[in-house]
């Protein structure tokens, strides 16, 4: 039942928020997201660390078409639920920096989005999953449309992702018609045992939706502009949580459902990921705008996660899970910092900034720690994930791992270069009266910094909770592929 609560609570409070006044909207949204966080903590402690799916809810929905309302949480989805519910309070808090017109609608849409995201991460029925997948798109579309700065970019984003989704729908319908009991239940999908040839083309129908959302090179062209033109909460939702829908879905809906195809296409997909990693990092080096730089850096990091998933081994999957969490935390922190800088100086151009450290030492230190987490320095959260991911890719193919490893080196290059130009050096006119972090900003940045270090120093509880589910998933895949041979 707690699963149901986690889906319903933000949806209900979100809808109610449309009716509330603009002044109190942010506080109400924050309270709602904190209640959700408390419920998540409760979920975390009552979760048994086994491979079992827990907190299962299974109601018939459209019985004649084999559609159920089936949601549950296992060791993999719990990390994603944690990610969503942990980040949302930060996103809501950090949006207090700007005054948004009709802000109650903005927060309402954010909460509805949260509900849809939890739905994606917990649904165990293909149809339900698709509904939530699309439902998550609608609020973010309106957030970008109403508070973003460029409508063309928003429409492009929407159509791009919708295109992927529709092909996925065709793929899911095909899988459904192949199941014995004519059901969308994930267990029926697992029991499909499709012939390898069929799996190979169904794989692309479904994978293209995830590849666009993640985005994997060459499906990324919507991303940088969308991230840059969005209002900051929109960017945070997109990069922090929404793109993880694609990564999570690869683990849930591709690896165990189409194992043979995953085995067949792994070289191709990891190859694309590696290209994306280097390409994203390379472009990031030459960026002049901080926000665009973060957007490309995010693309580079996410490519590594996708590669780790496709490697389909324990290190790759475990690394991907913990890195999804870490990346979400870091990216929210980074975009918040970009927003603070923009708010104070009116520019995001690196060359117009400089010397902020001498004006706001605390701010610069907090920025440094989050940045180090992002470039995967040992003892920060980024290191745990990237190390495991690289190890996973290495077990798959050493050359790929070597190429993917450049993400750490290039990441350090562009991040530290950017830090050097903005925080150090001479004070510029734009940064002449750069104020120190306020209490409100600290409320976001300090917990993020604590998380960066805490997960970096002691990631064991998170790894332990997902380990049984990951192992079970791999066994499932292997038993299937050996069965075929």
């Amino acid at each position, binding site marked *: 039942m707690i699963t149901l609560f986690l889906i319903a609570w933000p949806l209900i409070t979100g809808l109610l928020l449309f009716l509330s006044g603009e002044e109190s909207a942010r506080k109400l949204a924050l309270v709602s997201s904190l209640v959700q966080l408390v419920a998540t903590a409760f979920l975390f402690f009552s979760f048994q660390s086994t491979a079992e799916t827990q907190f299962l809810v299974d109601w018939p929905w459209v019985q004649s078409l084999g559609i159920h309302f089936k949601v549950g949480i296992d060791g993999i989805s719990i990390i994603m639920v944690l990610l969503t519910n942990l980040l949302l309070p930060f996103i809501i808090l950090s949006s207090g920096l700007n005054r948004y017109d009709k802000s109650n609608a903005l927060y309402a849409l954010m909460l509805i989005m949260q509900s849809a995201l939890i739905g994606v991460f917990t649904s165990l029925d293909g149809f339900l999953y698709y509904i939530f997948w699309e439902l998550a798109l609608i609020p973010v579309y309106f957030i970008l449309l109403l508070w973003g700065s460029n409508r063309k970019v928003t*429409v492009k984003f929407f159509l791009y992702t919708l295109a992927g989704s529709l092909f996925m729908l065709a793929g899911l319908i095909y899988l459904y018609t192949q199941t014995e009991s004519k059901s969308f239940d994930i267990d029926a999908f697992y029991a499909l045992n499709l012939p390898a040839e069929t799996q190979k083309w169904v794989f692309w129908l479904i994978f293209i939706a995830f590849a666009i959302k993640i985005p994997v090179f060459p499906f990324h062209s919507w991303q940088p502009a969308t991230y840059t033109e969005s209002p900051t909460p929109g960017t945070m939702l997109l990069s922090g949580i929404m793109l993880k829908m694609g990564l999570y879905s690869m683990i849930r809906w591709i690896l165990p459902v189409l194992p043979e195809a995953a085995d067949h296409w792994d070289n191709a997909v990891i190859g694309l990921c590696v290209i994306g990693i280097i390409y994203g990092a390379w472009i990031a080096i030459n960026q002049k705008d901080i926000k665009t730089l973060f957007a490309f850096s995010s693309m580079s990091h996410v490519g590594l996660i996708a590669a780790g998933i496709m490697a389909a081994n324990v290190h790759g999957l475990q690394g991907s899970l913990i890195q999804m969490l870490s990346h979400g935390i870091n990216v929210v922190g980074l975009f918040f910092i970009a927003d603070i800088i923009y708010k104070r100086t009116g520019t995001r151009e690196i060359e117009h900034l400089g010397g902020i450290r001498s004006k706001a030492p605390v701010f610069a230190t907090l920025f440094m720690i989050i940045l180090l987490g992002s470039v995967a320095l040992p003892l920060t959260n980024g290191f745990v994930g990237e190390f495991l991911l690289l190890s996973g890719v290495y077990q798959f193919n050493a050359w790929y791992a070597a190429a993917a490893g450049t993400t750490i080196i290039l990441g350090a290059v562009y991040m530290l270069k950017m830090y050097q130009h903005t925080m150090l050096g001479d004070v510029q006119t734009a940064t002449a009266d750069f104020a120190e972090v306020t209490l409100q900003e600290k409320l976001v940045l300090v917990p993020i910094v604590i998380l960066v270090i805490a997960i970096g120093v002691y990631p064991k509880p998170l790894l332990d909770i997902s380990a049984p589910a990951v192992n079970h998933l791999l066994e499932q895949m292997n038993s299937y592929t050996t069965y075929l041979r």
Partner: protein
Amino acid sequence: MTALIVISLVGIATLFGGVFNWKGKTLWFAVAGIIATLVLNFMDWNTGYSYFNQMVKFDNYALAFNGILLTSTLLIMLLCSHHYRNVAQNMIADIYGLIIFTLVGGMLMTSYSNLTMLFLGIEILSIPLYILAGSNRADSKSNESAMKYFLMGSFASGFLLFGIALLFGATGSFHLEGIKTFLSNNPSSANNSMVAVGILMLMVGFLFKVAAVPFHFWAPDVYEGAPTLITGFMATVVKTAGFAAFYRLFSYCFADLSGLWVPLLSIAAVLTLFVGNITALYQKGIKRLLAYSSISHAGYLILAVLAMQDQSDSALLFYTAVYSVSTICAFAVLIAIKEVTGTDSIESLHGMARKNPLLGIATTIAFLSLAGIPPLAGFFAKYFIFVTAMKSGYGWLVLIAVINSLIGAYYYLRVINSVFTKNEQAEKIELNWAYNLVLILTALLSLAIGIAPDFLVNLI
């Protein structure tokens, strides 16, 4: 059957409303008549009686489609109270009467079990519509629309009649059952040119009536020229009745001869989808956009006819119901906007979300539903059609339909974006209670059917 008799009587009585100067009461009399008919219609549920020597058969298929036709007409009638508020009420009693006669024709088209009855139904539906299309007498576009519709409609009727005659010549029967028995007893009749030409002519006739490509050329002009309310009526009731009749005949009688017509119909489906959607992309006016969108929706519906699978009739019913509800909602918005701004360009919607939140929300829901975005009903309708088509092995057609859904999403989104564009000069639009009721009802239905589709899925 009582339903059909009652609604015919209501139609005739409505005409007298003009003679006896009932004024505003005429409309409410007609509305009450339709509601009564709706109740009577569903009282026949599960009986499946045939009448007039098996000329018509009121099985659940017919009754369910009649339910859609009646509900759509009811919603459109409710819009009349606002739309015609400045017209002398005894002048337009005949319009109400004609709308009801069209409905009678539609109800025959869903329930025929004899081809002569089909023809009668189509004519009863069409002739009042020709007049309705030209009912805005002062407007030359309306006259043009009526003329075009009449000429093209007559051609289509001619094709249908030819088809019926040829089929009668080959099989010796007008009855669906007789034709089916003959065709299954004589498998070689596929080589009989009379049968083949007959079936194809019937198909052409139907494609004309539902405005599918390549027989769609009349639709955009007729839709644009006709009074907007009538356009809404044509796009929903006529299309629903056309497809109900199309599916009834082809799935029941010609399923065994699918080799003859399925390839051609598949091509028509592909063309309808692409031509409808791509042309809609370039439209500046909402009315014309809806006309092309209605053509493209015919493409999805043809998929259900092609699938001919045990759930296809449910899929067809579901799609027409959802499409009708969302389209009426869209047309209701369009009428209101056009009255105030005097244009139907997409830009005329600017500032709606602020100044007329109800209209804004209704537009958003209606167009998202037409675009097929979950969790709205339009998504489930598309999904249901895709599933039945996929089950029958039309995977490639589903992929084409998927690509078209994407093109469709683009132009529907343009309308929605326009609703949320700021415009300080936007005017507040005053609407009467019946109008608001229709807007709320159609928007709510577009949402509710999507969340709880089970009832409609299992209806027949």
